[in-house]
Structure formats: C-alpha cells, structure tokens
C-alpha cells in the first residue's frame, strides 16, 4: 500500500459527501425554481437530476482488489418529462388559449430525494469518522 493509498478511505468518503451535497444543491435549485416559467435556455424551467458514477483507479500489482476512488458526479441532466399546462390567462407567458407551461418539478419527489441524499451524506460522514478512529488506534500502537 503506497503512501497515497494510506488515507484513501478518507478521500472515498469525501467524494461521497461531495457528490451527495451537490445532489442536495441541485434539488434545492429544483425546489427554488418550482414556479419559474423562464429559464436560461428558454422555455420553462425543467427539473434537473445528477448522474453518479463509480470511480476506480488503476489496479496496482499484488493489490487485493481494484483501487477504490469513491464516486463522481459525471453529468447533470434535465428531466424530459411533460410540462404541466396551467390555465392562467393573465400570465405574460400564457399562449393564445391562456395556458402557461409550468416546470415539471414535483415537491414530494424532490423532498424524498433530498431525504435520501441527506441520509447518504450522513452515512459517508460516519464512515469518515470511523476511519479517523481506526487511524488513532493504529497510532496508539506506536505509543505501546
């Protein structure tokens, strides 16, 4: 095990926390824009989702398994599902029939995703804390 691998458990848990907090940011952005009828790329806001992928380093000779590197956010995608049409004739973005296309953000879905992201964040934090305790145990061996 090389020196860089010594604290790799910490960076694995760290990558998990980074990915989950990014997911929470995207969810917060979805909730904040639940009623935005205009977005940067034209048209109403579409809810966004993140794509996670496992990260593996190159395997070293004699290693017991792949070289774990945690998780990474590889993409942020827009939900292509249908935008609900709401009858609001007075709205400046209403079409000729008086309907406005609203964002496809659904609060219950966002809240459940927020909850799972938060739980996953806590679990990563717990793993990082345990690694710290284990390192302290190993250092205690030096004290004898």
């Amino acid at each position, binding site marked *: 095990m090389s020196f860089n691998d010594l604290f790799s458990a910490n960076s694995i*848990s760290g990558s998990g926390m980074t990915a989950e907090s990014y997911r929470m940011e995207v969810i917060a952005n979805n909730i904040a824009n639940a009623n935005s009828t205009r977005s940067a790329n034209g048209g109403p806001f579409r809810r966004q989702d993140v794509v*996670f992928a*496992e990260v593996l380093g190159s395997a070293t000779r004699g290693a*017991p398994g792949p070289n774990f590197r945690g998780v990474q956010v590889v993409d942020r995608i827009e939900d292509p599902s249908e935008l609900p049409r709401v009858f609001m004739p007075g709205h400046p973005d209403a079409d000729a029939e008086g309907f406005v296309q609203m964002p496809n953000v659904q609060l219950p879905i966002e809240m459940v995703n927020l909850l*799972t992201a938060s739980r996953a964040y806590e679990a990563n934090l717990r793993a*990082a804390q*345990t*690694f710290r305790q*284990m390192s302290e145990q190993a250092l205690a061996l030096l004290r004898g």
Partner: protein
Amino acid sequence: METRDSRLHILQQVMDAAALRHRVIAQNVANVNTPGYRRQEVVFEAEMARALAGTGGPAAVNVKPYVVVADGPERVDGNTVDLNREMNDLNKNFLLYEAAAQIITSRVTSLKAAIAGH
C-alpha cells in the same frame, strides 16, 4: 515466551484485512446512489479460520484478504447497496480492528516487560 510470534503476524493480517474492508465499505457507501453499482465485500475470516484449523488452503501467515462482488437484493436502479447493512458492517469492522490493535498492544507490552526483566 517466543518473540518470533506468528500470532502477532496474524493479528497484523487481521488489521490489514479490516483496513481494506473499511475502504470497501466506504466505496459502497459513497456509491449508494450510483445506478447499477454492485456492492463489494472482503473475503478473509473464513479462509483464515480454515488455515488455522489446518483444513486445506495456504498456511495462516500467507492468507490474504481479497475483494469480491457480493450479491444482495437489487433496487429498481440496479444498485445492491443497503445503507443499514453497510453501517452495521462498518461498526463490526471497527470493533475487529480495535480488538486486534489492543491485543497487539498488550502482547508488545508484555514482551517489553519480559525484555526489561520486570
């Protein structure tokens, strides 16, 4: 007392295996929301037990931990990580590491005492 003690070596192997298992659990937990991820685990104790009982396999000092892809109930997104299970394994693994570290400490302490002649 024997100083070239294979038991100390075995305890060191236990700590190595526990450190590896911690990384594997950390990887599983980090990928709890990665679609299609399969949980992995470390195989060590069963092989060590066989080696110590002398029922086949390599000698106890040559037993090495290795990582396998484990099966488990699959979620809709093809992911097999169960957070509760991982947290449970994390705690169990920490206790194993701690126990091995403390047994090494106490053995080294008694070796020191024997050397000092107390």
